[in-house]
């Protein structure tokens, strides 16, 4: 799986907002607020082919978490990304 390239992560003040601008001429845009962890993972995964294992590796590299917790969080995050339609 990969992240959709048309989604844009923007900083607005202290917040990070992911903008899904929708199809070219249709005004059906959506916005999502990201926390720091989601931002870091998003930036790490951009443009790459990845799976739950790669997400888990990012978490283990950047946060003080155990294997099990990282696995759980990675599965949850990928599920969220999938549910929101961020993946191709």
């Amino acid at each position, binding site marked *: 799986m990969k992240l959709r390239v048309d989604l844009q992560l923007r900083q607005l003040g202290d917040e990070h907002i992911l*903008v899904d*601008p929708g199809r070219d001429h249709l005004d059906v845009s959506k916005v999502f607020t990201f926390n720091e962890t989601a931002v870091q993972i998003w930036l790490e995964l951009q443009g790459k082919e990845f799976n739950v294992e790669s997400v888990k590796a990012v978490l283990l590299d950047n946060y003080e978490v155990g294997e099990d917790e990282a696995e759980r969080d990675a599965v949850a995050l990928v599920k969220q990304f999938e549910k929101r339609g961020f993946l191709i």
Partner: protein
Amino acid sequence: MIMLGNKEITVFFSLLRSGLWHRPIDRLDCFPLTDTEWGQLYQYAEKQTVEGILFDGVQQLEAGMQPPKTLLLKWLVRVEKIRQRNRWMDTMLVEQALFFNKHNLHPILLKGQGVAQCYRDPTIRLSGDIDWYFDSPAAFAEANEQVHKLGLQLSSSGKYNSSYAWKGCAVDQHGKLFDIHNPFVQGYVGQLESAYGDNKLALLLGETRVSLLAPMLQILQVNTHILKHQLAFGVGIRQLCDAACLYAYYHRQVEGATLRAIYQKLNLLNWVHVFHQLLVDFLGLDRDKLPFELNKQQNCTWMMEDCWTAGNFGFHDENYIRQENGLFSGRKSTFKKIWANFWKYLPYAPMEAISFPIMHYRAKAD
């Protein structure tokens, strides 16, 4: 009469200057704004098609001074849609350039994405349509023929302009470079085109090269186009931003004394002095980025009021819209508008003010 001094309009220009040149907000004394004032400001930005530039200014405000969250998000999304449209426009440009090249045609891109490159952030300039210039009557005719062969509906406006939609993208083709109507300088205009014609620039889109005019011609083309619209239905703030960004971007490449002499020869210098003052006073263009010194303190407020009322190429002039929808719509209100502009601009660009209505109605009659 528009009150350019009112609070929302003062803030509008302050944010515009900040966004154009990435400078701190120069009228912080006007903040904070109420939600209603922010709503009004956003509407102004939309009307003048400068939402992207203003948003850049908005982001420089401290959190406590920014618009309400809902408006901020709406604005963010709007800017993202502008960026999305610009990416799409680039793909349309590439398709069109390849199409013309296939038929051994090499048109020059006017305004639009070419001028956008002069902005600090080209992606936030709202693009309109694609304008191509063909530098010979044969090339212009051939381009029209090829577009026609594709089955696209081509409409002509006068001898030198045609337009059509390419996959939903509005395209204009031109056989004449400048909107200069004074019949006594047409020979000189042709000489200018020849003199600078070999100094073309290129816009690189992926591996596709699109030709742009030499800086001197780009400046002349954009500025005389603005004047033409001022004489017709008006011009908006975004078009003025184009002129300011062109001057700032190319100021080292354009010989100021030469440009001044050209304006003089075209009988446009008085108009240019007011126009330059407006770019400095309202848009915050640095004086040293102008091609030559300001003449003296010119009154440019009347010209900005004119632009403010008109919006994007005159599409938003409420007086005009009211008349267009009224009982005596069409030709009569068009005439009234052009007549009013004639008197307004006569002292500043006399030959263009006189020639434009004549050529305009002659072209319509052809």
